[in-house]
C-alpha cells in the first residue's frame, strides 16, 4: 500500500507562466505571460530554463521571502536529465532534488515535498515544473518545422512553467493525502495516443487511493486527471467502470479542459505543466470545488524503446487537496 496521509502540509502559493497559445485558451486567470516561444532567449531550451527561473524568483518575491528562507527545491521537466530544472537552479543557493515521472512530475513534487515537511526539519519547499511545446516536440517527435499531419488522438504539449510554495503554515490549500502509483502497461505502443497509454495507470491509482482510504468517488467534488486528453479521458472513464466498477460523475481532464476547440490541438493538452496550469488558473478560480483529487499521469516513453516496438509504460500519482 502506498497511500499516505499528511498532517498540516499546505500549498501556500503558486505562480504560473504560460505560453502564447495557453494565454489565449480557456484559462480564467494568468499570472505571467510569454509573448513568444523564445521568451527573449536564443534557443527554446534556454527559454524553458528561464521560465522556471522566473516562476521561482516570482514566488519568492511575492511571498516576501529570501532565497535563503527556502530549504529545498523539488522539480523536474521533460528534457533529458531534467535539464531545464538543473539549469534553472544553477545560481540558486537552494538545495535541489530533481524528480521525474514525465507528466506526473507535478504531483510527485507535491508528494515528496509534503513528505519532507511532515518528517524532517525542512520548513519551506518550492516545487517547480515546466514543459515547452517545442523542446518536447524536438526531443520526442519530428523536427519542429516539419509539421507532419497528426492523428486526432494526439495531444499538444502545453508551454508553461509552474512554481508552488509548500509549508506547514495553514494557508490556501491543504495537501491531505496522496497515493503513489504503480507502473502500468497494457500493450499500447502508439506514441500518438498517449491518453490510451496512461488511462489504465490513472484508473489503477484512483482505485487504490479510494480503496486504501476507504472512500467513494463522491467523496471528492472533483477528480482531475492530468493530461489524458479528451480521447484518453473518455477511455479512462470507461475503463474505470468496466475494470473497477467505479462510476465517475465528477471527473474532468486537465488536458481536455485547457485549449479551446478552435485552437485545433486535437485531443487537447499534455505535459507536466498541463495539470497544474488548469488546476491553478481554472479549477481553483472556480470556487465551488473544495475537495479535489488530482491524478497526474505520465507516459514514461523513450523513443528508443518505442522504435524497438516495446509498449509504453505509464504511471499516475494522486494527491488529495482541500481548499481552505
Amino acid at each position, binding site marked *: 500500500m502506498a497511500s499516505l496521509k499528511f498532517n498540516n502540509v499546505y500549498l501556500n502559493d503558486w505562480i504560473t507562466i504560460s505560453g502564447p497559445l495557453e494565454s489565449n485558451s480557456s484559462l480564467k486567470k494568468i499570472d505571467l505571460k510569454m509573448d513568444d516561444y523564445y521568451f527573449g532567449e536564443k534557443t527554446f531550451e534556454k527559454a524553458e530554463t528561464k521560465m522556471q527561473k522566473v516562476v521561482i524568483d516570482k514566488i519568492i518575491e511575492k511571498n516576501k521571502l529570501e532565497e535563503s528562507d527556502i530549504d529545498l527545491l523539488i522539480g523536474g521537466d521533460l528534457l533529458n536529465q531534467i535539464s531545464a530544472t538543473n539549469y534553472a537552479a544553477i545560481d540558486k543557493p537552494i538545495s535541489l532534488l530533481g524528480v521525474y515521472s514525465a507528466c506526473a512530475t507535478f504531483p510527485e513534487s507535491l508528494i515528496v515535498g509534503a513528505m519532507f515537511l511532515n518528517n524532517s526539519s525542512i520548513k519551506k519547499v518550492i516545487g517547480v515544473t515546466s514543459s515547452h511545446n517545442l523542446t518536447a516536440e524536438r526531443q520526442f517527435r*519530428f523536427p519542429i518545422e516539419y*509539421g507532419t*499531419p497528426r492523428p486526432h488522438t494526439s495531444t499538444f504539449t502545453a508551454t508553461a512553467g509552474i512554481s508552488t510554495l509548500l509549508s506547514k503554515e495553514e494557508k490556501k490549500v491543504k495537501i491531505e493525502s496522496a497515493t503513489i502509483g504503480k507502473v502500468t502497461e*497494457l500493450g499500447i505502443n502508439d506514441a500518438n495516443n498517449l491518453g490510451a497509454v496512461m488511462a489504465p495507470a490513472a484508473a489503477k491509482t484512483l482505485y487504490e487511493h479510494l480503496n486504501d482510504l476507504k472512500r467513494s468517488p463522491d467523496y471528492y467534488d472533483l477528480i482531475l486527471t492530468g493530461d489524458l486528453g479528451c*480521447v484518453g479521458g473518455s477511455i479512462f472513464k470507461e475503463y474505470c467502470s*468496466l475494470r473497477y466498477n467505479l462510476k465517475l460523475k465528477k471527473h474532468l481532464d486537465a488536458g481536455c479542459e485547457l485549449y479551446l476547440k478552435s485552437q485545433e490541438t486535437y485531443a487537447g493538452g499534455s505535459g507536466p505543466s498541463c495539470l497544474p496550469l488548469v488546476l491553478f488558473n481554472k479549477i481553483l478560480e472556480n470556487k465551488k470545488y473544495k475537495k479535489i483529487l488530482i491524478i497526474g499521469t505520465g507516459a514514461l516513453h523513450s523513443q528508443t524503446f518505442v522504435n524497438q516496438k516495446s509498449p509504453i509504460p505509464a504511471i499516475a500519482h494522486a494527491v488529495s487537496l482541500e481548499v481552505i
Partner: protein
Amino acid sequence: MSKDEYQKLVKRMSPKEPKFRNALVAFLVGGSVGFIGEVIVNILMNSFGLARVDSYAWLAFILILLATFMTAIGKFDNLVSKAKCGLIIPTTGFAHSIQSAALDYKKDGFVTGIGSNVFKLAGSVILYGIVSAFLLVLLKVVLYG
C-alpha cells in the same frame, strides 16, 4: 481486463481518421503540384527554348526553392496540416524535410547540429531510393538485357 480487450476498447473509443477525405485532399493537392509543374515545364520549353530534359531539372530547382522558402518563413508546416500528404510526397516534401531539420538543429553547431541531423528524415528516402533504383535496374538488366 486482458491486454487484447483493452486494445479493443481503445480502438472503439479513439476517433477514426477521415482517411478518404485526407487521401482526396492529398490527391488534389499533389495533383495540382504536378499540374503546376507541367505548366512551368511548358513555359520553360516554349518561352526559354530549353530542352524537355533541362526543363525538368529547372522545374525541380524551382519547386525546391519555393518549398524551402515557405519552410524558412515558417509557413510550410501550416500548409501541410491543411494539405496532408499532398505536399509531403512530392519533391517539395523532400526539400522541406531537409530544411526543417537544418532549421531545427542550426543552434546545435555546424557538425554536431546541422551536419549530423540534416538528413534525419530525408536519410531514409535517399537510402531506400538508391536501393530500389538499384534493384529495378538489376531487374531490367536481367529481363531485357
